[in-house]
């Protein structure tokens, strides 16, 4: 139990996927302009991360059994792509309300490096099935947390004219992310 908790807190705060490990930067910067879309993206990523780990971990055992572990990259990305398509279809058919709020982000998640990254990291770290799922959940929640905080910060930045001209737009956004990342470094050594 203590191990589960330490992995969970470690992934959310200390080794935050976005701010400490640079995974999933594209959606972090691209979809964080509005709070509701940031939450939608974060929840969708968390959901897909856990689901993708649930699917890829057993597949890796099969690959290991036949000694074709080098096919990991190809197999994982295909499984994730198929899974995301499948989830989208299921949501569309059975839970249209959820599809309306999360569905728009699902195609983008196929090529999200955080999802593939968490699947590969779980295998590299040698986690068992339970720990791998917890690890993915932590990574997803950490991503969601970073998205929510960052979208709040970006709303304050909106229309700020004190920023020097070359820094307006993307560079100041990135600098803000640097400060947020600096703040998250304060959690170092927590676990």
């Amino acid at each position: 139990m203590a191990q589960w908790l330490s992995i969970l807190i470690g992934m959310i705060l200390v080794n935050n996927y976005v701010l400490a490990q640079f995974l999933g930067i594209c959606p972090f910067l691209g979809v964080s302009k509005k709070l509701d879309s940031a939450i939608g993206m974060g929840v969708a990523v968390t959901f897909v991360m856990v689901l993708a780990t649930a699917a890829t971990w057993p597949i890796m055992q099969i690959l290991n059994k036949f000694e074709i572990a080098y096919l990991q990259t190809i197999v994982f990305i295909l499984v994730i792509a198929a899974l995301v398509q499948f989830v989208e279809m299921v949501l569309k058919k059975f839970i249209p309300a959820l599809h309306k709020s999360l569905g728009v982000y699902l195609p983008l998640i196929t090529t999200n490096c955080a999802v593939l990254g968490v699947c590969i990291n779980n295998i590299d770290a040698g986690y068992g099935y339970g720990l791998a799922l917890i690890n993915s959940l932590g990574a997803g929640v950490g991503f969601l947390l970073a998205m929510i905080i960052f979208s709040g910060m970006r709303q304050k930045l909106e229309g700020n004219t004190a920023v020097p001209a070359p820094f307006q737009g993307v560079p100041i956004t990135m600098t803000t992310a640097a400060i947020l990342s600096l703040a998250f470094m304060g959690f170092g050594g927590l676990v």
Partner: protein
Amino acid sequence: MKEKVNRLAVLTKGIIKENPNLVLLLGTCPTLATTSSAFNGMGMGIAATAVLICSNIVISLLAKIIPDKVRIPCYIVVIAGFVTLVQFIVQAFAEPLYNSLGVFLPLIVVNCIILGRAEMFANKNGVLDSALDGVGMGLGFTLSLTCIGAVREIIGNGTIFSGFFLGSEELVQKLTVSIPFISEHPMLIIALAPGGFFVYACAIAVVNKILASKGKKPRDFGCQGCALASMCQQEKCISELDGVTIEKKGVEA
């Protein structure tokens, strides 16, 4: 003659005018994560370039065969195949690089530059043009990664060209230049995560300044560079998509 000028433009536009990660703002994850030293960034750039050239060639060859509806998965399979190949090569010939890039080597699969070039250029241009486009874009990517890496290494570690990934330990030692004063008081934070964001921000600001002096508007994060814009259902993407089709025609012409 006119043809040749065009080819040259295809080759060089990726290096400065349409630099993939400073102007188009693609591939931000590897840019931030692998630039803790100059050679690390360069290694990542070369690996991605190799994949980009190969995948561009193969996709432009297969463009007519691949059905339009399943093109994205097909591209991903082609790219993933080449990434696996590159993983093998790097592991065999440059193990230090393999270890320091870690998870970001397999993650070249989801690098938006590669999928983006497949979707926006390779599938509607000839083999030679696509290869040249791959070379140009790859060079631009490698160049900016190396520059950002060099800045972070100098300020954050006080050295330059440390950790060369080929050859023996002696060669690595010989290549490493330690900079006086800074190496005694390195600002470690620049080599860590926040510094990555900050140096990248400064690099983009410099590019923005240059763009502004030429009377061009700097880009914001949007759907123009996104490889999946045509599949995306966000209202923002759909409204921006018209701009993309115009831009695509500009590339073709």
